[in-house]
């Protein structure tokens, strides 16, 4: 997996190896961001699928992406009100963070039952918070001229941009690796959490604590990925399934494999969008992952029957 990721990433943006140092560093930025985003989404998806016992769970279930999207339009709108202009540069970091953590916090609090997030409530609350954030986002978009729409539309499709600040990039990448290792230490607990609640508790899993920690790690990882690349569809859903085919149902190595699969997927997709030139510039990476991810998921579904 690592090999695939590296090979394709170096071969991207035209097939020649770069011969200038600054191009190398730009590509390095892209590769680090891509691997980090893919790892984060994959591991977050694996954690959520495990604690919700739901093969369709994905990181965006936590409402965090829609929250971040809302953050982006609100920030764009405030800038517009203050200066009368729409800034076409990338969304401000604090707006994305505020939006994602706001939504995550809301979902986390509203899905509590007896002090821990309860799986069914988490899914329902996540969907509802997402819908509400999306509605507010549309409303604010209507208050702005058309370029305001464009900022959001570009952001929401996801892109790995070489403009990401070095500090942000390496902080998020470091946090992603830390989060992945942390998630791996939960492996045995996550395995036993595949049993019913009573059984998991009876063999010694502190289910409430496990759920809280997992949601927290998944939330932080997803927020990091959204910060680097906006929402990228399907990676968090598919990477855990791909990993399970290779590493089996166990979570300790499953999470490691998921991180590799996710990283590889995103770097591959990023190579793809760098290679496919459209008249209006780079295609957003989220478009490619969705186009490839959808059929891939259906294929997996038909292969396994039971996911």
């Amino acid at each position: 997996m690592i090999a695939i990721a590296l090979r394709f990433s170096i071969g991207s943006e035209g097939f020649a190896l770069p011969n200038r140092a600054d191009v190398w560093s730009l590509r390095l930025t892209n590769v680090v961001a891509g691997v980090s985003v893919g790892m984060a989404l994959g591991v977050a998806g694996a954690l959520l699928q495990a604690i919700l016992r739901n093969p369709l769970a994905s990181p965006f279930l936590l409402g965090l992406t829609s929250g971040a999207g809302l953050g982006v339009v609100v920030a764009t709108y405030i800038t517009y009100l203050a200066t009368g202009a729409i800034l076409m540069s990338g969304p401000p970091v604090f707006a994305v963070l505020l939006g994602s953590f706001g939504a995550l916090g809301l979902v986390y609090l509203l899905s509590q039952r007896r002090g821990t997030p309860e799986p069914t409530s988490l899914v329902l609350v996540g969907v509802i918070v997402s819908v509400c954030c999306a509605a507010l986002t549309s409303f604010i978009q209507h208050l702005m001229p058309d370029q305001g729409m464009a900022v959001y539309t570009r952001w929401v499709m996801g892109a790995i941009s070489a403009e990401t600040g070095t500090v942000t990039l390496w902080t998020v990448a470091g946090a992603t690796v830390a989060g992945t290792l942390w998630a791996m230490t939960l492996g045995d607990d996550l395995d036993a959490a595949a049993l019913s609640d009573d059984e998991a508790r009876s063999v010694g899993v502190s289910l409430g604590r496990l759920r809280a920690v997992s949601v927290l790690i998944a939330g932080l990882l997803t927020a990091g990925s959204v910060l680097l690349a906006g929402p990228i569809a399907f990676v968090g859903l598919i990477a855990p399934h791909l990993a399970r085919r290779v590493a089996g149902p166990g979570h300790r190595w499953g999470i490691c494999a998921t991180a590799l699969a996710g990283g590889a997927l995103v770097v591959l997709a990023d190579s793809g969008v760098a290679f496919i030139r459209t008249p209006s510039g780079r295609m957003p990476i989220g478009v490619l992952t969705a186009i490839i991810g959808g059929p891939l998921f259906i294929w997996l579904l038909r292969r396994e029957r039971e996911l």
Partner: protein
Amino acid sequence: MNGLVCEGITLRYERSEPVISSLSLTLEPGLWAMVGPNGAGKSTLLRALAGLHAPEAGRVLLKGEPVHRMAARHRATRIAYVPQRSSVWAGFDVRTIVAMGRHALPRRDETIERALDGVALLDRAEEPYRSLSVGQQQRVTIARALAQLDGSEGGVLVADEPLSAQDPAFAARVMGLLRGHVERGGLVVAALHDCTTALRCADGGVLLSSGGTLVTSGPAVDTFTPGWMERVFGVGFDLVRTPGGPALLPRGATMPL
């Protein structure tokens, strides 16, 4: 005192009537059968005994320690639980499921082998749990609980209808495994629906009537009598001597010959 002690426990699910009210009960080490009509609260009481349902009032004590307050990992070294229907979400194989019984304990391969052998599933150990029949899955769960209690002399096994999906031969085999745990100094409390099995195999009996009231408890021969059974189930019972031992047969269900 090695047994489980219920001190005036009241059990209730959120915003509904109590399932069990102020029930007091002492279970010494041995094999206890819990019998009662559907909906009497047997499963809820068993969950409370296993520390999985916090009583609204009163406490369940194991060696003086309230079971629902024990940390999950600590409790797992002393109490194992077999639910009525087990469920496993992911595609784990049978051996891995049994090994989960050692989640909070040192994993020992021979313990897991022995537990699998006990329920006659050693040859299915590498198959996915979900490919097994309901009865086989139930035996996997029993094996997991026994693996969990292996080496814990005086451990408590709480089992909710462990025979519900077993044919007569396997039912006898499972009762033998439970008896084995008791002989190692353990305590087993199992909900059973077959009164004859309860009478023949158990040391002690607990009779619940609908509404969650404890009707009587004590030695099995004094608990599973036609008189008490009629009071709990509302149908007459005959105590019949058979070559295999005493049998308690309900009168209402027989077809006229």
